[in-house]
């Protein structure tokens, strides 16, 4: 009996010791430099990331892992200019997604909301897309990801949609959209894939111009894809995206350059071209005076 108690006590102590280690890592990952205002403590944060990357045992049921994962997501989104922190957070996300399948759905939700976030910087969006690309390779159950699988090409990176859409050269990104359109014409993508992933990716081209991150869009493929995918939306989503861009066009509080106005006009026009709702029945239901 005494041996049993000793065993239980030792087990409890090991458990507490691990728990404290994880909590300490959370503190380290959020450390600030005491000598510089608003400056992260890079030394402490990066050391902690290295320790986490050396972990051998993973347990997706433990909240400590989930906390760390959410912390990585925060770092990925907030470290817009801190390349080192973003890289380490990204590496840790990769590790956790590979080892713990339960976290994949959490990450996918985050990808969806991040892609729809119009104010997200292109660097962070590219990081999310890079993770999405790796997740497509390993995930076997999610239907949206299975649908996106045909955009991958592991044999020839030149033909891989994700490889091209993340490319630094703009013509390679337009090439990715051309391949996307061809793929959709061969076999249409599911509407949820379009709504959650493909349309936000296409819209990001327009959003980058509006955020003054990129120059004018000199290829019609962006607007063709926009029309193509908007035709797949239900009324509420269609109306939402139309209102979003149309309101900006008529927004008096923010002034746009001529290039931005041109881009907005083309965008609104492309969405209107995609109007696919049969309004005859609706009209007939209204009483005519």
């Amino acid at each position: 009996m005494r041996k049993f108690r000793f065993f239980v006590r030792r087990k409890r102590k090991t458990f507490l010791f691990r728990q404290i280690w994880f909590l300490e890592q959370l503190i380290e990952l959020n450390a600030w430099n005491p000598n510089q205002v608003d400056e992260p403590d890079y030394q402490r944060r990066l050391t902690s990331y290295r320790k986490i990357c050396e972990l051998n045992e993973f347990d997706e049921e433990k909240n400590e892992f989930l906390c760390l994962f959410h912390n990585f997501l925060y770092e990925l989104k907030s470290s817009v200019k801190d390349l080192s922190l973003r890289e380490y957070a990204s590496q840790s996300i990769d590790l956790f997604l590979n080892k713990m399948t339960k976290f994949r759905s959490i990450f996918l939700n985050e990808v969806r909301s991040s892609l729809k976030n119009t104010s997200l910087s292109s660097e962070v969006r590219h990081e999310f897309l890079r993770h999405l690309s790796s997740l497509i390779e390993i995930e076997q159950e999610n239907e949206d990801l299975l649908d996106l699988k045909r955009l991958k090409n592991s044999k020839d990176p030149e033909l891989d949609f994700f490889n091209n859409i993340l490319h630094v050269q703009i013509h390679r990104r337009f090439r990715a959209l051309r391949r996307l359109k061809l793929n959709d014409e061969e076999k249409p993508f599911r509407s949820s894939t379009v709504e959650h992933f493909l349309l936000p990716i296409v819209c990001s081209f327009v959003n980058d111009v509006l955020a003054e991150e990129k120059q004018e869009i000199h290829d019609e493929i962006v607007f063709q894809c926009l029309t193509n995918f908007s035709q797949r939306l239900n009324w509420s989503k269609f109306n939402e995206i139309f209102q979003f861009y149309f309101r900006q066009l008529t927004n008096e509080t923010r002034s746009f350059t001529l290039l931005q106005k041109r881009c907005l006009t083309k965008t609104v026009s492309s969405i209107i071209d995609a109007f696919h709702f049969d309004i005859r029945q609706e009209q007939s239901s209204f009483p005519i005076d």
Partner: protein
Amino acid sequence: MSIRDYTSCFLFLADDPLICDENERLLNYLKQISISMIDSKNSMSLTEKEFEILLVLTRKPSTIAMTEELSSIFVRLLRQNVLTKKKKKSSSKSELVLSILSILENLFRQIENPFEKHFKEFPILFSKIVEREQRINLMKVVQVFIDRSSQENSE
């Protein structure tokens, strides 16, 4: 006396022995509100007066059970304030989150094993709390979890 009459005079008579006996009833009422607030998933929240009463109760919790109940209510309040989507982020909301985190830091020091009781509610907050000051306060709460676990480990 109805709960509404009671809450209206509570702030002035918090230390009165006649009122103190009713604290549990009041706490139960606030607990119900905080639970329905989470269930409804909308921006419903405690009124200003109800929040003030919570603060007064936090000042002098009579039993450990009461402190634990208060901790649960504040954790729910924190999640509700951080997770509900509001179009405009007001500075008062930001200050409220800061205050709740400070209160939780104090309450968790007084209860036994706060990690096992409340840590499961925290993971999502590590990505949703983004303001620097709020994150610093969140880390203070994590430090309390560490201190309490270390304390248990040394016993």
